[in-house]
């Protein structure tokens, strides 16, 4: 609904400036995002886990020399939760579950930030080139994308990681190799969509350069779905990374949630449920938090899906 009070706008608007208006708009948007309780819940979870990752060395005694290796307490194997010194119990090999849960958040943060960061940049670049240049270039790039998309992503990443050899770094590398495709595709589709808007033509009629039009008109209006997807993937990457670790593609003994679930698996027949349960719960919460935030962003940023909720 158009704001029709414009004609009689009060004088105080005189002091408006572009910055002020933009800030106000940002504030309104933030308000819109925060008006959804599930989004707020997601954000609280995210801040909680980020805090955990940030303050890990203060929450637990960092293991030396490598804090990402689980410390082993050979004197307290297979202890249940509530054991003094091991509030969440210990694993078969005496690893402190709490330590794994806390330092695992750091590992997960590393994983998701590196993979999402790298793939968003690569995907945006390739998708933009395909969408903006079009023609043969687009054709070739999209055929490559098609080949990548013919393999389910987890299986592709699994194969790459397997061939590179089991290590957490290789998991990151393999996920980077696989995930850019999705962003390239979204970006290209978005650019083609946004290009159809008359304001792009209007900018051409003015005589603005193609690069300017891309950065001022196309990219900002095309980015929304990418931002939403990236948010959702912050969770999804951890989920997939943990699955790879669970299958056995990480070094064993590192503080990583998937590895811990895998180690704990052996004990469940004997009733030792804790070693798998807590790290798994963390994966769930991590993915849940970003899913909630992503959904909230989508609703707030994309007017079309307003009806979808």
């Amino acid at each position, binding site marked *: 609904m*158009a704001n029709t009070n*414009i004609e009689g706008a009060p004088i105080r608007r005189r002091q408006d400036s572009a910055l002020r208006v933009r800030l106000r708009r940002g504030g309104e948007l933030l308000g819109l995002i925060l008006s959804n309780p599930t989004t707020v819940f997601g954000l609280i979870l995210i801040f909680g886990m980020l805090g955990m990752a940030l303050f890990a060395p203060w929450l637990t005694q960092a293991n030396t020399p490598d804090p990402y290796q689980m410390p082993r307490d050979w004197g307290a194997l297979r202890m249940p939760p509530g054991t003094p010194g091991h509030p969440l119990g210990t694993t078969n090999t005496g690893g402190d579950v709490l330590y794994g849960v806390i330092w695992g958040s750091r590992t997960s943060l590393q994983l998701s930030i590196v993979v999402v960061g790298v793939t968003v940049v690569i995907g945006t670049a390739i998708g933009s080139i395909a969408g903006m240049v079009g023609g043969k270039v687009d054709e070739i790039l999209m055929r490559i994308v098609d080949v990548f998309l013919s393999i389910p992503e987890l299986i592709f990443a699994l194969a790459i990681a397997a061939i590179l050899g089991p290590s957490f770094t290789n998991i990151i590398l393999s996920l980077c190799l696989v995930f850019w495709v999705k962003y390239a595709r979204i970006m290209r589709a978005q650019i083609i969509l946004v290009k159809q808007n008359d304001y792009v033509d209007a900018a051409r009629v003015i005589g603005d350069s193609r690069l300017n039009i891309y950065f001022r008109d196309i990219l900002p209006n095309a980015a929304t779905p990418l931002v939403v997807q990236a948010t959702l993937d912050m969770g999804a990457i951890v989920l997939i990374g943990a699955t790879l670790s669970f299958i056995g593609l990480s070094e064993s003994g590192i503080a990583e949630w998937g590895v811990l679930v895998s180690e704990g698996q052996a004990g469940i027949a004997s009733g030792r449920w804790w070693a798998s349960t807590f790290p798994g719960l963390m994966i769930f919460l991590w993915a849940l938090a970003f899913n909630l935030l992503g959904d909230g962003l989508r609703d707030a940023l994309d007017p079309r899906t307003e009806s979808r909720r």
Partner: protein
Amino acid sequence: MTDMSRLPTPEQASEAASGSVLSLRGISKHFPIRAGALQRVVGHVRAVDGVSFDIRPGETLGLVGESGCGKTTLGRLASGLLSPTSGGSYFNLDTAALSKLNAAYALPEDARAAALAPLEAAHGIATMPKAAQSRFRRNCQMVFQDSFSSLNPRHLVIDIVGRPLRVHKEASGEALTERVVELLEQVGLGRQHLYRYPHQFSGGQRQRISIARALALDPELIILDEPTSALDVSVQAQILNLLNDLQAERNLAYLFVTHDLSVVEHMADRIVTMYLGRVVEAGPTRTLFDAAAHPYTRALIAAKPDLAVDDPQVAKFAALDGSIPDPARPPRGCHFHTRCPVATPNCGWELDDIVRLLERSEDLFESLSDVSRHSDFAGELAFEDEGSAERLAQALRSDATPASMRSAMESLTVDGRTLRVRFQEVGEVQLSDRGPDHIAACVIKDA
């Protein structure tokens, strides 16, 4: 490319004493149609097919036609947003240059290139030097139909209206703000609107912002692509008045693309009517409304409801039969003959007209098994049974078929399950003079 030499004749050019802002000559835009497993190009949609006209300084040229006639594509070709498949557009021709251009196009095709070369170099949109191109870019602006889509939702009004000035480095900082305020005031908005987003405005106000943006570089020509068709009448009146005031103040030329005959009658000095990618008639507004030479123009005008008619019951609905034919395979001769109420045998009746007739009949189309063409005008239609062929022949000889189509048939024989038919061959219909500054493409000359 058939009739570019017809328009306008050198005599007419001399009347246009002040030259032309933009001249299109034989301009075409064909979009490929792809089909089959390998997506080969199997044909072209001739969205615009050999169109020529001039836009004179300070005038409003109305471009009318039904949806799908190519008027929007033509608007985009004129603004340089699309590049033509063939033909040329020439910018800023004075009287002398315009008559040279017309003389060149009057030459046979093989001699034309040499005569055109100097004009191409100085005035051709695609061929002129960079500086001249940039001058064209500043002097030819556009206002779009959809005011939602034509303003970037993430930009403030000051950025939108000030952008042309920034791009062409005309102003910055405080000076830019003042220029933008000036422009906004010219279109009936003001300083208080500088820092607003497009979504905070109503449709009419957004269209005003679009107009302010188009005015920023002080152009000579603005292409208006259905600027008011998304607006309510009371707002439309505001915008039309505004456009008119601006034209008077700044000696702007408008190319007004619209489907609304009332609006174009009100606004235009001259009108060009298009049908299936071609110009069928062009002339001064009053001439067209009082004495249109082409039956299509007449039909459009008659279909226009008008409040000024005193007794509405007298103004009987004038309506056209049928729908617009497939632009990928336009009818031969006059494109309009399939729907024309006054068609003659010379209008280009062809084999496809029989197929169009068949599509309307209950069962004959089903029993049609094969069509073999000798040309567009002659061929054989094979049916699954003899009865169908006979029935079609009867229908073609009866009143169910337009009289002009019947007399266009040179022969019609039934041979078992096959129907042989030959129509008289007719060339493309050319635009011809109908009076001062008035041309039309119709085989009936004494309308």
